[in-house]
């Protein structure tokens, strides 16, 4: 039987091999198949406790993890943390010590500051899944994107993707870059020069005009959500201009449709900014598929991780 070595945490793709990434993605497929059964639940994590530790509100991601964990029969708890607790003199470490005492097996961590999940992972025996930290990483988002991409193109080697928008402030962009590169996808990017710093990885091609994106002819155009407050910090002059120069306008959408390009977006979408409303009804928009695939992918990630609290004896017993 083919096996992959256990891993405690999923924080970023820094220490992941292509083989391991593919193993997780391959595992997500049978999980997705479960959703067609009358009972959508499997007993894999029965008796285990999964904790959602969201320092930043995100109903979508939290719910996706919650459903994933429940379909694996885990007990799920949402730990409400106020972002002001840091100010009040309670360090994250204090919180972790408290949670450690509650015998949690998996912690799903989202935090506005980069590095917090890594910090927590170093201080707990539980498996930590980074559900988004600062501008650093959002690995499960990238995995569900790759899973969605592979449903259409099973072999991603040599395929192309262009990630468009605010790269500077995007953990999604960093993780998508890393994972796609790991899987052999050629990666390009497109957006205002203020939001695509020269410090991005060398393997990312930077396009300055939309025509160049079309010439590159990616199978997938991945639009990032634009945080509306960037406008006030002078990263670009106005939403109108952003949409005209860097968004998917009606005219550009026609070209995209002609070329048969797929559209992805991590959600939630700013209509009229990143894309025109028509894109949402486009038959090659994968935006809904991404949301749906989030659950199976996160189940695969939960299955893939091994908390230190588990006692793995090390011997593989014949299970007959």
């Amino acid at each position: 039987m083919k096996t992959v070595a256990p891993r405690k945490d999923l924080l970023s793709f820094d220490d992941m091999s292509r083989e391991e990434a593919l193993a997780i993605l391959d595992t997500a497929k049978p999980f997705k198949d479960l959703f067609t059964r009358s009972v959508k639940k499997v007993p894999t994590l029965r008796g285990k406790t999964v904790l959602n530790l969201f320092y930043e509100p995100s109903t979508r991601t939290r719910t996706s993890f919650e459903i994933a964990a429940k379909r694996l029969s885990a007990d799920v708890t949402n730990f409400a943390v106020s972002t002001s607790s840091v100010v009040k003199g309670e360090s994250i470490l204090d919180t972790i010590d408290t949670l450690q005492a509650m015998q949690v097996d998996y912690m799903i961590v989202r935090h506005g500051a980069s590095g917090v999940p890594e910090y927590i992972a170093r201080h707990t025996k539980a498996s930590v899944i980074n559900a988004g930290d600062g501008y650093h990483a959002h690995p499960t988002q990238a995995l569900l994107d790759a899973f969605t991409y592979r449903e259409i193109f099973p072999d991603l080697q040599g395929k192309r993707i262009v990630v468009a928008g605010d790269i500077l402030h995007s953990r999604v962009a960093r993780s998508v870059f890393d994972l796609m590169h790991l899987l052999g996808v050629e990666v390009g990017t497109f957006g205002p020069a203020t939001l695509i710093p020269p410090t991005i990885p060398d393997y990312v091609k930077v396009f300055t005009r939309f025509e160049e994106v079309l010439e590159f002819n990616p199978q997938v155009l991945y639009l990032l959500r634009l945080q509306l407050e960037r406008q006030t910090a002078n990263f670009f002059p106005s939403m109108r201009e952003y949409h005209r120069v860097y968004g998917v306008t009606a005219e550009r959408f026609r070209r995209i449709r002609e070329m048969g390009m797929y559209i992805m977006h991590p959600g939630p979408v700013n209509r009229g900014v990143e894309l025109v409303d028509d894109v949402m009804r486009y038959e090659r928009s994968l935006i809904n598929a991404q949301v749906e695939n989030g659950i199976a992918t996160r189940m695969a990630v939960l299955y893939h991780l091994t908390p230190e609290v588990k006692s793995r004896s090390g011997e593989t017993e014949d299970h007959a």
Partner: protein
Amino acid sequence: MSTRIFQQARVVLPGNAEPESVMLRVRDGRIAEISPSLRPAEGEDVIDCRGHMLIPALCDAHVHLREPGQEDAETIESGTEAAIAGGFTRILAMPNTDPPVDTGGMVGFVQSMAKSRSRIPVSVAGCLTKGREGAKLAEIADMADQGAVMVTDCNHALQDAYVLRRALEYTRHFDMVVGVYPDTPALSAGGVMHEGTVSFRLGLPGIPAMAEEIGIERDLRVAAAVKGRMHIQNVSTAEGVASIRRWKARGVNVTAETTPHHLLFNHEDLRAYNTDFKMMPPLRTREDQEALLEGLCDGTLDMIATGHAPHTDFAKNLDFNHAPFGIIGLETALCALHDALVSPGKLSWSLLVERLALAPRKLLGLPGNAFEIGAPFEALLFDPEGKTRIDRDTLKSRSFNTPWLGETLRGAIQNVYLGDLTL
């Protein structure tokens, strides 16, 4: 009358690049004789220094003692004991305490506390502006009267070139140095590390090198125009070094410092979000690191200061974004520099002594302690083959926020001498 003879020590003498083996006679706290051989007289203490270096004791022009206000991180007593452990007999205490040292009264208060709690003399810096707010000059003459030797707002960079201009002008009558932290706050605001490939990868807000470069250039232009006495704290960038070199060549009365950690680390060392690598200015690139060493060797940078910045475990255990800037440095400076620069031959002993002992004393207006007849004897005995373990049990500082925690450095300080005393 007490006399001591230091036998067979390897000694860095003024004007000599390489240490040589000589004997020193110290009488009443001053160097009485230096000679290849000395006969001990009746009743003289003889200290056998075979295999060891005897060098002038160190002086640190940039130390945060945290008292009053943050005694959980450091006190005058613990901070000065850390200084002694690191081979320092003189330090300059920074004024960003709570309350800040921004009046003559506060300078006097710190001086008197230091007298009763410290085994070494402590020089005091006052604030440049009231409350370090960058708006109104603090009462500089009052502070000078109480013995302050520098005014600085520490890492609150002056936003306002007008205030800097007036400060540099006003201090000219008071034998007072204006210390500046060169920065352009509009460019560095919100940043927590050097802006570059590593900050992109870690997703951390960056502090661009140009924030410091513009700051240095601006401050130097103001200093050149008004002919004040300026000292630039914490230089971290290659372009900053180049600016200082250019303006010094034009005769600007400026000195500049860098730190051991900026010489020995760069932003690549920051990968694991370890807050013991979070400092202001941030660790820059390898190229900056090399330019700093070059500037240190050619004299563009006059001195090494540790910027000793104690923070409690609680503060440094916050996440990287929220943790405070700064690391402790008194107890690691000499061994770390010896280990990484002197031992492999990248920095000579004589230059290390100049930058870490003699130049800072000059900045503080103290008599020089180079090994010359009649000079005050402030020295340390160093075993280059010894080992210094940096950990919680050995550190004298109340705080442990150092990137060398858990490491063993080559070289060990055996004794520190202040006049007739062995500290």
